């Protein structure tokens, strides 16, 4: 099938009395990494949570693979092959790394049932996961927790990966590690929607880019075009993003 894998059309989302998304139009192309940029409070996380069904859109359409998913429950959406890595990582701290991974590989009853090749591949991306396999996830470092959150999302092949600010609070060396892992992941034709504030991080990974402000998409295009056009960057992203570079 052609057409975008994920499409949002005029999506409005309210959280309680607050009107957060004011008609988001967003397309995520198959097999590409789309970066959603924007300052704090622009509605990036709400967009991801709306796709995942954690908030329901009050108006507009969310289509996945051409199918309307706006009214479906979170577990149903997850079962379609959409994985979500929230900003707070949402790892299960009392469970071991191994148990976290088994939970994510829904079909597997135990570690032996996870596809061994796939697991080796995840380990090659994040060697720390192999090292701390039997450790409670709550005792990992911040960077390792982030790696576990991503590893958990990719332990089974997914159609679409939603990742919220994977670079947040990580040391530069670990960010490089994370970039390498996402590059590797791109080779597998996984479609990724990545929310970022760190333009430097985003620039190294994105194929497409969409910029949000005030609950709307204010710019979309290729990352290459945005990366070259400094005036546009200045206008869209302002100084708040410049600080990260």
């Amino acid at each position, binding site marked *: 099938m052609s057409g975008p894998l994920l499409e949002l059309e005029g999506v409005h989302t309210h959280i309680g009395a607050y009107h957060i998304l004011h008609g988001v139009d967003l397309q995520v192309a198959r097999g590409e990494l789309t970066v959603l940029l924007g300052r704090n409070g622009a509605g990036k996380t709400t967009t991801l949570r709306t796709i*995942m069904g*954690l908030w329901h859109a009050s108006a507009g359409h969310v289509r996945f693979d051409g199918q309307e998913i706006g009214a479906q*429950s*979170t*577990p149903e959406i*997850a*079962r379609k092959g959409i994985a*979500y890595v*929230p900003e707070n990582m*949402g*790892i*299960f*701290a*009392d*469970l071991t790394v191994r*148990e976290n991974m*088994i*939970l*994510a590989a*829904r079909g*597997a*009853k*135990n570690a032996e049932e996870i596809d061994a090749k796939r697991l080796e591949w995840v380990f090659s991306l994040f060697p720390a996961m192999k090292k701390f396999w039997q*450790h*409670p996830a709550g005792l990992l470092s911040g960077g390792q927790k982030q790696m576990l959150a991503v590893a958990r999302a990719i332990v089974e092949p997914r159609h679409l990966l939603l990742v919220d600010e994977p670079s947040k609070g990580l040391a530069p060396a670990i960010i490089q590690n994370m970039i390498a892992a996402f590059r590797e992941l791109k080779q597998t034709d996984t479609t990724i929607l990545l929310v970022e504030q760190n333009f430097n991080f985003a620039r190294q990974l994105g194929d497409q880019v969409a910029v949000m402000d005030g609950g709307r998409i204010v710019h979309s295009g290729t990352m290459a075009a945005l990366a070259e056009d400094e005036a546009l960057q200045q206008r869209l992203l302002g100084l708040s993003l410049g600080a990260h570079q």
Partner: protein
Amino acid sequence: MLSRILSGDFPRSRVLTAVLIVVVLGLALAPFVFPGARALNVAAKICVFIVLVASFDLLLGYTGIVSFAHTMFFGIGAYGVAVAITRMGPSWAAVAAGVGVALVLSFALSLVIGLFSLRVKAMFYAMITLAVAVAFQTLASQLSDLTGGEDGLSFKVPELLTPSFSLSETPFLGVSLNGKLISYYLLFAATVLLFLVMLRIVNSPFGRVLQAIRENEFRAEALGYRTVAYRTASNVLSASFATLAGALLALWLRYNGPDTSLSFEIMIDILLIVVIGGMGTLYGAVVGSAIFIIAQNYLQDLMKLASNATSGVPVLRDLLHPDRWLLWLGLLFIISVYRFPIGIVGKLRVNAWIKARAKAMAAATAKGVS
């Protein structure tokens, strides 16, 4: 083999292993090591509470659901056996019918409570269960034709379990082999079996999802698990095990009334044992029940000894008077909650884990790997 029996969930701490072995051996040999009716009653109560508290931990410790209706299911089990035997006479068929009806009733009630109220916030769920439990308690004491009201029901048990039934004329190791002994070992075997089944459940893929829900319900949903279904299943399972514990209690006591199985004091005891033993570890139910019930039954005796020994010291003598035992029990709880905020088992496991990690780190540094 051992790994299969324990579902791969080892104590993971040497101290804990030792304590568990002592408790299990103590219970297994109780009639021979601790002779006397009182000691055997204490051992039997520990067995019943292990099942009851473990079933509550399934709900509170593993799924993170706070319920106050647990004694209701305990009571349903006990009343099931009591009412059935009173009506049908002391036969095994009556026991089976009582347990069967009680299980069906508990299943239906817990399913309804779960489906209706697990969608609401934790606090409201706790309140709803409290309301239902109080209503049930009132119902049990009002329906005196069926339940014996406040007086409860005394009944006979199948002949095999009565003290007058004798296996052999000659006592074995100084203990007469009568129905009471058979009764105790039936209870002990049921406890071991039910505990191992629960251990299997919490270590199954199903149990892992329950723990994931406890830690982060949204996250579990985002991984594709229908959390309401899992929470309801946990509610139903927990209620069923509590019902079985109630049936065991009634069979052992040959009596059941509102105060023995439905009272709110039992609910508080359960909560205390879970917290002291360690939430989210079934072994905590074993350790907690043993410590709690032994303290509850023997603290007074211990204090009598201490009071007599200090009869010359004015204030201390009064402080240690057996009538003050509740004060000391309360102090023991406060100390244990301060000292072991994650429960005795939780603390022992974390200690063992930290030790193992320090060792691993030292080994890694020695090899020159950071």
